């Protein structure tokens, strides 16, 4: 146990270095985005609901859009019958963006926060509000 000084010092230095990112960034978390739902089209809706319940849209919109794409492009089925029985045209441009006319609010805020980069807009046309 003659070298215990060195061993313990080395261990402390090691632990400090390894945990550095955790304590250096403690309390500095970026605030979760709160997208504003205030587009003129949404305000005019009698019942402010998307094609499905908000909670489902929040967690599963990517799966829904993926399925919409498959159905429209590959099956030629263009109408979505939602769980409440309403029919919607499955179109990013014509249905989604009609209400969600601000891409910065609806797409970019959360996608930037989570660092995901879906490449929808290289082909699909962004709503005019962003230009």
């Amino acid at each position: 146990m003659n070298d215990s000084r060195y061993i313990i010092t080395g261990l402390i230095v090691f632990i400090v270095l390894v945990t550095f990112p955790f304590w250096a960034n403690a309390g500095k978390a970026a605030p979760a985005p709160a997208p504003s739902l205030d587009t003129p089209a949404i305000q005019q809706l009698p019942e402010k609901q998307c094609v499905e319940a908000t909670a489902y849209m929040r967690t599963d919109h990517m799966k829904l859009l993926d399925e919409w794409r498959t159905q429209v492009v590959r099956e030629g089925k263009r109408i979505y019958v939602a769980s409440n029985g309403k029919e919607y045209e499955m179109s990013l441009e014509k249905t989604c963006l009609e209400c969600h006319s601000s891409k910065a609010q609806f797409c970019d805020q959360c996608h930037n926060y989570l660092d995901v980069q879906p490449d929808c807009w290289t082909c699909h046309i962004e709503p005019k509000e962003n230009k």
Partner: protein
Amino acid sequence: METSRRNFLKAGGACLLGLTIWPAVKGFAGNSTEYITSSKALTGEKWGLVIDMKKCWPKYQEGCRECFLACQRAHNIPDVTNKEEEIKWIWTEPYENAFPEQEHEYIAASIKGKPFIVLCNHCENPPCVRVCPTKATFKRRDGIVMMDYHRCIGCRYCMAACPYGARSFNFSDPRPFIKEVNPEFPTREKGVVEKCNFCAERIDTGLPPACVEACPAGALVFGDLDDPNSEVRKILASRYTIQRKPELGTHPCIYYLV
């Protein structure tokens, strides 16, 4: 706890019955989503086109390009001037190039060198579909040879396979070359192949292809080749028509009256 053989079998039977009727219960309970085709959608088994060049030429000579312009507007087709990188969905080829196997030394002056409207032939046996490694190009149930741009990796096998040159590659970002953007139809991006989609998006909502609708001379006749009572079939039955490169066995669905 003691269970008699009799009670055990009863409980098992009840469970089995429950499982059998479960799908029906789920169906009646509603709350299920569905994907359906629009009630307005045109229905056909094998869409085809008959092009009457005799009707087209007088207008064409006056400078009519309505079918090209309608297609360009509907699908955000970039107007790339560089011949090597141009994007073509519907265009013209001289007779000799469109029908090389029909060409001969003493061809009638009335068709020699004349422009023929050409586009994707929506072949019944499409070589582009066979070679596509990602299944980005596929054949719809109604015969339309379609592209799923989401899946195209830009390998250009389809361009090599297509005997009609009906496919174009986006060598650069097409957006700066689009004159007038139609916000209802996506553009393409750099690195994907594109081609005529026979206006699948219009057919699915009950409209004929944009080129057919735009033609002021009525030179383009659209219809179901599988339906013997359709207008296209009536024309095919009564008049002599030709196809592009039929000897290749691709079975094109575009016919020409000369």
